[in-house]
């Protein structure tokens, strides 16, 4: 009897949290400006709480490297754990998730004093470094308790950014194609649309000289449209759907680092099937540090 309940519950939470088990940061990194020879590293922490006592803690790390002024390489490394905490049984799974590697090329840009606009397509893949075969009580578990998709997943999209001194906005559209695996858990393909608006409210009056640290208020919207997952090659009816989330965060930034934190509120969860687990509230925190590349090119050391 328990096994049946567990299976129903596991199926109900399939498709929950598009970014929870296998993907990267809630604050999307596709629009991060990266110059040549610069490395950006961003550490995230994302606890998320939901119905059915599903608790999910993710710690994704985003790394960006500027190969040239227009061409940047990114890696999204995800790790964390999730647990179902209701009833006498408490399945728990964690570890490394799938690794997202992609390249971004700034195709079009306008730079003027105090304003910049960019359009940058990106392409890459999710490597199956996570686990898609987690079972509990002999039953294959679904999305929220798996850490990987089990397949090599092509990933592509486009990022756009418009920034002024006081306000800035970014957006992206990405698609992750997940081929169906014949065995174990197989994640459904994911269309994702993100937007971000930021207002720099401090310093209230920008000094005529210098580079002051600043405080920003940031609003981020995330829309996910997920296809249905597969369990051992069979489509899972209680999976997939549409989710729209809004996040609000406070950020502090300086020349070398940025730190922030905020809340994630699900505004719309239109999920396929019945009895699905829905997100109640999430939090996000991040710390970002900028680095020069490890080795300089000797040929540029000319003038003394």
């Amino acid at each position, binding site marked *: 009897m328990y096994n049946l309940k567990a299976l129903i519950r596991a199926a109900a939470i399939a498709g929950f949290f598009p970014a929870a088990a296998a993907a990267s940061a809630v604050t999307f990194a596709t629009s991060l*400006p*990266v*110059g*040549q*020879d*610069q490395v950006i590293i961003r550490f995230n922490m994302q606890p998320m709480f939901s119905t059915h006592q599903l608790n999910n803690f993710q710690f994704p790390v985003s790394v960006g490297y*500027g190969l*040239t*002024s*227009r061409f940047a390489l990114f890696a999204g490394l995800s790790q964390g754990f999730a647990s179902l905490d209701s009833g006498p049984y408490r399945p728990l799974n964690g570890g490394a998730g799938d690794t997202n590697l992609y390249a971004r090329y*700034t195709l079009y*840009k*306008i*730079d*003027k*004093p*105090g*304003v*910049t606009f960019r359009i940058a397509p990106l392409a890459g893949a999710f490597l199956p470094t996570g686990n898609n075969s987690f079972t509990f009580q002999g039953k294959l578990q679904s999305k929220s308790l798996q850490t990987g998709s089990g397949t090599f997943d092509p990933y592509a999209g486009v990022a756009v950014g418009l*920034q*002024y*001194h006081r306000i*800035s906005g970014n957006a992206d559209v990405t698609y992750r194609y997940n081929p169906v695996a014949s065995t174990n858990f197989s994640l459904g393909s994911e269309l994702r649309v993100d937007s971000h608006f930021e207002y*720099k409210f401090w310093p209230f009056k*920008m*000094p*005529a*000289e*210098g*580079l*002051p*640290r*600043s405080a920003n208020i940031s609003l981020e919207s995330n829309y996910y449209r997920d296809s249905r997952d597969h369990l051992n090659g069979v489509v899972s009816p209680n999976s997939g759907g549409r989710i729209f989330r809004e996040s609000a965060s406070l950020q502090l*930034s*300086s*020349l*070398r680092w*940025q730190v922030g934190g905020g809340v994630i509120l699900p505004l719309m969860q239109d999920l396929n099937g019945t009895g699905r687990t829905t997100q109640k509230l999430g939090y996000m925190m991040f710390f970002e540090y*900028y*680095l*020069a*590349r*490890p*080795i*300089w*090119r000797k040929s*540029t*050391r*000319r*003038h*003394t």
Partner: protein
Amino acid sequence: MRRLLPTLLLLAGGLRAETVTRAIAGVNGITSPRGFFNISVNIYRVPAVEWMKFDLEANRLTLDCKPGSTITEDELREAVRSAMTLGGFKPGPVKVERVEQPSEHPAKLGWRKVKRPTAKSGVGRWFQINF
């Protein structure tokens, strides 16, 4: 005699005053501290530059070379343009001039000394430049 002595003293002081080469560049597309970091990473690679100053509101980058630097105006202008381009931004106009060496470069006004790593190993130099 009363006028000659002060004049001679002023002249002597003026001759002793050291000058440095300064580049003042307009920047395009930088709207946050992170943008200046993109440029500063590439400024590290110009050994002649000792001080850099970022003025976000004025969209301006100022660089002071080491006293006695042998870099020419054209070389400095080109190095500054290159740093902006490599940082991902469109270079603005660059003005190079000789100025009297400032007695100080106040951090409050945005001056930062360019880090010069001294470690022998590449890893050591990388740590010195980044932490």
